[in-house]
């Protein structure tokens, strides 16, 4: 991508923040705000993809923005995992922008400038997390991400939205300040560094007993990865308008969570050290438990968005399990699942929002025969579901393939069985909505003929569904990018 303009990592992180500021300043005219949203997401896309070229050839070093105390700085650098996360987020953002504009204007929402400004800030914060060169930088942007998405969750202003938003913020802040921050300080006190280093910084510096405690603090402190019992914020966040659920609570926020888990496993603990720790197994089984229980809960949700939310909790646990297996293959699988699940889940949420705008239906049991009215939406839903389940011809099959192989390699039979069982459960709760829509007869009062949601919404969801199909064929590139983590990083 060398023909794209090259910005520094800081510039890329700042693009959405500046966009948010401009949207805020242009608050008087929502139309101008929409144009700025388009431009910002476009510039961000160019910035991230422009970084990919030089990053792959190793030309982007560490960019220290400001040193707060000696050895403690706000600094950015690019490594494969963060690059992958941002390639995903920037691509989906540009698709989510028209969708969000279509949804918010047709859904009769007010206070749009605030919405789009916070939306942009959340993306900028996610970029900060992805490109962070040390724990402190990561923590700062992680908190910005929590706080900036709070107004989005509470956006419609109802009592229910406020309650949901409160649970959301309380859980994310308390876990990060109460668990993550002490762990960060501990790492600093024990090793004298907070920088992410390939292979980890703890081995030889921190006793395995202390490392075991650190692991628990970090993994449960990363509330955004939604390990039980700190998963409640994610279903609560579903009161948000659907574009928020789609881009933020299926991609930017939750992927930031599992990204942090993977990044800490690879660059703070190191996989070899991770295998020695007493609590790795414990976290592994908590994640496995989360994976299965969330799937079971999802089966009983009639509300479509709630079902998708629990499905997300379960899929995030796949990735945490991948990290805790501490084998290279499963870590790579985890990174790829971030990408595949991102495309699949955003498609599903886009569809849920399109259904709501077109028909005001929110329950799975109301979808009977809807496929005849909204063939594109429900077709995309079907493809998205295939991707999340992990069936060909979608990209999801490859990430699950590597995760399962990783479990097999490391000899965790229980985890292997859990992966397979959970996949069966996925089929049981993700396919019925599509099957109902296409196979069941519509209710008697449904008018015949095509009545899709506005094209601003339908086109993006078709594109993301198409994306999952394309990923089936280009998954190898993702694998190779991730594999670079283990042979000397980028360059």
């Amino acid at each position, binding site marked *: 991508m060398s023909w794209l303009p090259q910005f520094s990592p800081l510039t890329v992180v700042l693009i959405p923040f500046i966009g948010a500021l401009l949207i805020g300043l242009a608050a008087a005219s929502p139309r101008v705000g929409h144009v700025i949203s388009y431009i910002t997401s476009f510039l961000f896309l160019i910035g991230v993809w422009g970084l990919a070229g030089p990053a792959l050839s190793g030309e982007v070093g560490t960019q220290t923005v400001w040193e*707060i*105390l000696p050895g403690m700085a706000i600094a950015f650098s690019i490594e494969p995992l963060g690059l992958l996360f941002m390639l995903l987020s920037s691509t989906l953002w540009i698709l989510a922008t028209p969708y969000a504009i279509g949804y918010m204007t047709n859904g009769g929402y007010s206070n749009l400038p605030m919405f789009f400004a916070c939306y942009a800030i959340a993306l900028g914060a996610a970029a900060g997390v992805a490109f962070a060169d040390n724990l402190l930088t990561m923590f*700062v942007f992680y*908190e910005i991400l929590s706080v900036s998405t709070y107004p989005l969750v509470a956006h419609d202003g109802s009592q229910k939205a*406020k309650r949901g938003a*409160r649970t959301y913020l309380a859980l994310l*802040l308390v876990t990060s*300040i*109460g668990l993550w921050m002490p762990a960060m300080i501990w790492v600093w*006190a024990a090793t004298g560094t907070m920088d992410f280093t390939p292979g980890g910084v703890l081995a030889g510096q921190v006793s395995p007993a202390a490392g075991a405690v650190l692991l628990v603090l970090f993994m449960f402190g990363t509330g955004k990865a939604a390990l039980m019992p700190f998963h409640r914020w994610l279903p609560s966040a579903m009161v948000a308008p659907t574009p928020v659920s789609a881009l933020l609570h299926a991609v930017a926020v939750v992927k930031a969570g599992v990204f942090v888990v993977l990044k800490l496993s690879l660059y703070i603990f190191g996989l070899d050290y991770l295998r020695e720790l007493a609590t790795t197994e414990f976290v592994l089984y908590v994640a496995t438990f989360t994976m299965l229980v969330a799937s079971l809960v999802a089966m009983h949700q009639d509300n479509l968005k709630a079902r998708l939310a629990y499905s997300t909790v379960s899929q995030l646990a796949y990735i945490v399990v991948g990290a805790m297996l501490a084998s290279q293959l499963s870590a790579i699988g985890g990174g790829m699942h971030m990408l595949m699940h991102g495309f699949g889940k955003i498609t599903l949420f886009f569809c849920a929002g399109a259904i709501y705008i077109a028909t005001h239906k929110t329950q799975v049991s109301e979808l009977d025969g809807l496929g005849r009215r909204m063939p594109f939406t429900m077709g995309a839903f079907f493809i998205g579901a295939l991707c999340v389940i992990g069936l060909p011809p979608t990209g999801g099959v490859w990430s699950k393939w590597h995760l399962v192989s990783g479990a097999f390699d490391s000899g965790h039979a229980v985890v292997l069985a859990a992966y397979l069982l959970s996949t069966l459960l996925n089929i049981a709760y993700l396919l019925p909505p599509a099957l109902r829509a296409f196979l069941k007869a519509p209710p008697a009062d449904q008018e015949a003929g095509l009545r899709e949601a506005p094209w601003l919404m339908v086109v993006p969801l078709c594109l993301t569904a198409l994306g999952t199909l394309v990923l089936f064929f280009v998954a190898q590139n993702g694998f190779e990018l991730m594999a670079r983590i283990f042979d000397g990083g980028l360059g």
Partner: protein
Amino acid sequence: MNMTLIDLLPFIVLTPLIASGIVALLPGRTLPFVVTMLACLASAVIAAFVLPAAIAGPPLAYPFGNWPPPFGIEYRVDAANAFVALLVAGMSAVTLLWAPKSVAVEIHGRHGTFYALFLLAVAGLLGITLTGDTFNLFVFLEISSLASYALIAYGKDRRALLAAFRYLIMGTVGATFLLIGIAFLYMTTGTLNMADLAERLPELRDNNAVRAALAFIIVGMGLKLALLPLHLWLPNAYAYAPNFVTAFLAGTATKVALYVMARFIFTVFDADYSFVVVPLAAVLMVLAVAGMFAGSWVAMFQIHMKRMLAYSSVAQVGYMVLGVALATATGLTAAFLHLFNHALIKTALFMAVGCIMYRTGSAKLHDLRGLGRQMPWSFTAFALAGLSIIGIPTTAGFISKWYLVLASIEVGAWWLVVLILITSLMAVYYIWRVIETAWFEERPAGAVQVREAPLALLIPTWFVVALNFYFGLDTRLTVGASMAAAEALLTGWGGLP
């Protein structure tokens, strides 16, 4: 005439002291304010020049009237008191920016007397900070205390009178304890000069009068510092004083008391005596932790915002005393850092509350329902300063908590780290309550429309909020000076020149 820095040194105190006499006579409102501002600025500028010299070299000594110590009064300035003096003079100038609008609605008639009292309080606090003579310290303590009682009594609410009276009783008890302690020291050593005392006291380690002196001084300063359980005067005094006075006192008065306590513990008595011979560290640590918890806990349930912030101050004093009680270089650095940073944090918070009160006349939480949209700038300032008191990275509050946690880890006190984090989470709660009430509750039907606070209040408030972020990112001044202060306290003055 060629004046050196040493010659200018006493003018840090003398400028406000002399100006106060002039201001008392000035008519109207603008003129007293301008003169007060100039005096505080002059003090701050001299203090800013003194600090680098004090950090770089040996303590600066200025004998009054050329009477050599220990016979005359001597000002003796090292990094520790130069830093505190800069803080006090600087904060008084910064809070003054905010004063004209705020004082105008709260105090009727001419303002000459009010500003004169303010300058007396400033001069008193600076005198306490710079002096190297224990009795002189007591005199300045009385000057600043009497001035602050009067300033608090200016509050519009009639309960301000009772609060001022209560503070007067408690403050006088505290000052008397200090005086008794000083008298014991004078009785046993025959000297009042701190450096001289530091030389003579090691021989008197087993003297019970010396022990009693330390106890009296610690309790006396504990009262002025509002260290739990001696904090009872503080919540009402802060809550009912005029907003400007609250903002000023919150940033300066308790900080100076903490400095005096540290000065006596480390320089006059030396750490070995205070912490090894007398088990002061354990006592201070228990009280500090109790203060951190009780203060935060009570703050969580206050319905009056100024009282809430006042209880939060009790908790923050706990952090500072904890740093002193750890008695290590890092611990003292943390104490001085928090002394400085907390001044910025609390002043910003009280200013933001003052902005809100300027329009609404109330600081009760339920009167603020739904006000966030009507006064967005005031509440955003409050929220940002709130981040600093919680200790989120990139704010000043983070830096001091960071050092405090490092100091705790250094001595292997992991349980302290846990306690600091729990109290930080409690701070999240009490700050959050305000934000939620202002932004996420409906404005009650029939409530009057309120305009945003005037720029004359908002600009200084945001200036202090910005300082919170500035000192959260650029730590060269604060960390550098705090480390030098800690070192100065731990090495001592090495006797008389």
